[in-house]
């Protein structure tokens, strides 16, 4: 039987995109389907920490070792997605000395470069650290842009012939007897480079082999073919500050707990997180206490956070998994290891494996292992090259820095653009057309927005994650309509308006958890700009009834000149 594709990957997060890249570069025919935008699930909802492994150095040394290896690999192959911030595990007076020693030993045993700093030395690196921080362990933590990294994997997979299909929701697994041979997807509605297919239509995609890389949603997918996969989704909140209070990753040096990390990320700092098991990865409460805990607890480490401006909070769900029978009660105790469930071995159903658990930092190693497994199933002998071949954007970064001019951009804008685009900067920014800044907060120019539209169509949230446009202080209030303008004339007016509405609503969603002080003022200003000046809340073009234009002032065009002096 002829199949549409050799391997079908379900899920457009870091794992799915990593697998697609790995298999495509080994020469396999790959199709990836994602129900929303790339990174829509867990990948786009993390704090952007590139683990050194220090976090796991006491409790889970295998993970720690894997993290430091992958950390070093990603710095090599994805330099344009990684900021080498370094990290500190800081100890307050009430935190245990024994744990501090265990952390240090664990780091050394796992090959994680670690150095002990006095409180004073730590404050020299991070002046806003609390006065009573006693000691710290310095480790090579980093910050990573999960959007950029995930998209780079997808782009490279596409360059090797893969089909990447976003806004394609799996509505059924195709199973015949004991064999899964594909999926049925429904193509998404609304604006976007959704697919070649019309919105609302369904499509059957058949494959030699299916990889279920849907993370926290793996159980839902499995159940479509009567496979039981016991993922335990666990939610965590992240709160975004409007500036970087710290330039180093700050971890609290104690066993576990909510609110113990601050990650500098681009122009912001991200506070994390909570760990609460939830029943449904799509529907869980986003609670005020979680936001309060981030600010109140982390200001014990960095006191200035208590008075600082937050711009939004967002929640993600971890795809936690533990083998049946373990019965861990507290989600923070569930392992962060990943598990490859071969449903042929496990359930007697061939043609599909699921990948569950795991963590972002080791996505590439996971992808390699799964790709090896798939290749074995399909009798393919090609080997993995993803640890050695740089991702698109990360080739020749040194030469880029040395040799590139600034494309007529003001230097801070050019610097930001180069950081985001890496070695693709020339290709994107060299233009004879006017290239004004579209998003002032993040310094994103028209050329960059148009490049993202080229890659992702009229889905402005996909444009956002590729460019960071609308992710700064104003949260899109000043720029999201200008981002939308760039869709025209390629997309018609109604599509542009719907795309703008979608982006504006998405930006509002996270701000709801930051509505006090400066950000409440900002929200009111954004509301006023969009509702007052642009009348977007009551736009006659969106209304059902017609406007009786003749009843309004026409300035005298229908009759006498306007009166001027009475």
């Amino acid at each position, binding site marked *: 039987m002829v199949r549409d594709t050799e391997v079908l990957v379900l899920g457009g997060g870091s794992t799915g995109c990593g697998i697609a890249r790995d298999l495509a570069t080994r020469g396999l025919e790959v199709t990836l389907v994602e129900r929303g935008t790339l990174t829509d699930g867990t990948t786009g909802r993390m704090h952007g920490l590139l683990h050194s492994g220090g976090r796991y150095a006491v409790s889970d040394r295998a993970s720690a070792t894997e993290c430091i290896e992958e950390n070093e690999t990603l710095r090599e192959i994805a330099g344009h997605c990684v900021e080498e911030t370094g990290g500190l595990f800081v100890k307050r007076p009430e935190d245990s000395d024994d744990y501090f020693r265990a952390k240090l030993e664990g780091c050394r045993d796992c090959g994680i470069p670690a150095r002990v700093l006095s409180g004073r030395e730590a404050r020299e690196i991070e002046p806003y650290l609390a006065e009573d921080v006693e000691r710290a362990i310095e480790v090579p933590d980093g910050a990573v842009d999960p959007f950029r990294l995930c998209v780079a994997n997808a782009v490279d997979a596409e360059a090797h012939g893969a089909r990447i299909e976003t806004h394609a929701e799996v509505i059924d697994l195709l199973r015949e007897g004991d064999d899964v041979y594909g999926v049925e997807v429904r193509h998404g509605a609304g604006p976007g480079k959704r697919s070649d297919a019309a919105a609302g239509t369904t499509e059957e995609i058949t494959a030699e082999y299916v990889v279920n890389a849907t993370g926290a949603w793996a159980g839902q997918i499995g159940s479509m073919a009567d496979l039981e996969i016991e993922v335990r989704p666990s939610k965590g909140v992240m709160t975004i500050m409007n500036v970087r209070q710290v330039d180093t990753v700050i971890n609290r040096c104690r066993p576990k707990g909510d609110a113990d990390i601050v990650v500098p990320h681009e122009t912001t700092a991200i506070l994390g997180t909570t760990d609460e098991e939830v029943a449904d990865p799509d529907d869980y409460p986003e609670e005020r206490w979680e936001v309060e805990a981030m600010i109140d607890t982390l200001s014990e480490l960095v006191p200035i956070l208590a008075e600082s401006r937050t711009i939004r909070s967002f929640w993600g769900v971890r795809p936690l998994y533990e083998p049946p029978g373990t019965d861990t009660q507290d989600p923070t105790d569930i392992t962060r290891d990943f598990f490859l469930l071969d449903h042929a071995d496990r359930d007697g159903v061939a043609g599909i494996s699921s990948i569950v658990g795991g963590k972002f930092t080791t996505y590439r190693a996971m992808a390699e292992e799964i790709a090896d497994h798939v290749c074995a199933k399909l009798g393919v002998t090609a080997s993995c090259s993803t640890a050695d071949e740089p991702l698109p954007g990360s080739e020749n970064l040194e030469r880029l820095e040395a040799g590139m001019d600034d494309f007529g951009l003001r230097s801070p804008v050019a610097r930001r653009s180069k950081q985001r685009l890496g070695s693709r900067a020339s290709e994107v920014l060299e233009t004879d057309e006017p290239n004004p800044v579209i998003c002032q907060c993040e310094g994103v120019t028209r050329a960059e927005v148009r490049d993202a539209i080229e890659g992702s169509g009229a889905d402005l949230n996909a444009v956002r994650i590729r460019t960071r446009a609308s992710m700064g202080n104003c949260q899109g209030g000043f720029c999201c309509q200008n981002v939308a303008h760039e869709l025209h004339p390629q997309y018609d007016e109604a599509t542009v308006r719907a795309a703008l509405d979608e982006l504006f609503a998405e930006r509002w969603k996270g701000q709801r958890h930051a509505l006090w002080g400066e950000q409440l003022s900002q929200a009111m200003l954004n509301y006023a700009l969009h509702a007052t000046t642009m009348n977007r809340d009551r736009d006659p073009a969106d209304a059902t009834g017609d406007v009786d*234009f*003749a009843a309004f002032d026409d300035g005298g065009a229908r009759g006498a000149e306007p009166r*001027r002096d009475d």
Partner: protein
Amino acid sequence: MAIEDDVLVVGGGLAGATAALAAVERDVRVRLVSHKQSTLRHASGLIDVLGYTPAGEGPLSDPFPALADLPEGHPYERVGAEAVRDALAFFDGIAGDAYAGAHTDANALVPTHGGTVKPTARYPAATAAGLASDDRDALLVGFGTLPDFEAPLAAAHLEGAGVPFAARGVTVRFPGIERDDAKVTRYAHLLDRDERVETAAGESTARTALAETVRPHLEGESRVGFPAVLGDDRADAVRADLADRLGVDVFEVPMGPPSLPGLRLEDLLFDALSDAGVRVTTGVPVVDYETGAHGAGSSGPARIDRVTVDRNGSEVPHSADQYVLATGGLVGKGVESDRERVSEPVFDCHVPHPADRYDWFVDDVFGDQPYARFGLPVDRDLRPLDADDALEFANLRAAGAVLGGHDFAAEKSGSGVSLATGYVAGRRAAEGCR
């Protein structure tokens, strides 16, 4: 020794300036102090009165009948519909030829930079030829370097709204703009001064070059709309010059911040303040106040005796008989908040709000937002009320966006509320002087 006036207005936006102008008409000594730049630079420069009812009905072709039905506590309900008319007439007198729309009670529908139309009561003369009820076909012109206004998209949007004319848009290069991120004031000044610019056809002046750039795109339209960058100090001359050269009417489409029509309105108001003899001090926050003797017996509300302003680090006392608070809403920082509460920072007047900040908003971004209504409750004399509906102070009135009880963005009522309450607060303050 304190600086002494009869009326002290705190705040330099539309409400504060109107209050000061209304007060000084009564031959009292008036001073206006303001801290930050006013929010007029964010505003379109349009004078909205009421475009939609609080229930969302509209656009209202005539705002006045709807004023009678506003809920208790709405600023218009507090001052009454006649005061709104009086205030508009007062504004018309100040604005003169700079604004139009006074010839009719009807609202105008003005195309703005997003391509929507919005109802408004008064509009700058620069916008007059662009009204959406005017059935003449329109050409919209955008500039490649100004991403705020995408003219072909705006034209398509207007047609989507069902306007009774054909709209078409083109994007051109603005002659003389070299930088891709020039400020809007750079465009305006280039045209104000009619600077020499280089074009493909040789050297020219900015206005001529712009007209020549646009001319080939005209296809019989009798009016042409530009983003609101057509001059600053000499906007009328720029517009007239372009109209002459193109042989069509020329109008501006109001834009987002920084907004030249908003800045021009601010200039107009400050010129009027200066002409009227109002003493104006800008850049000075009010940092403290003192109360004096109580009004009607010791149980009555306190009187504000004096306020202290911070002028470059030195504290300067100002005393007046009557005070007007016109410091703006959440945007202007006349209303502030932290994680626990919403407050008014100058006199700590009562601001009603839900105790849980998760009740300050609703999930739909354009839904009925409680935060949009944050502000002071006042009596019908515009005096702020405390939690027990008693007067906060005997000699303080409030005006403009610092007032609660209305959602100016949804209603399109911001300027009208500022004018009407500013006018009433200023006049009553002057009348109340001992």
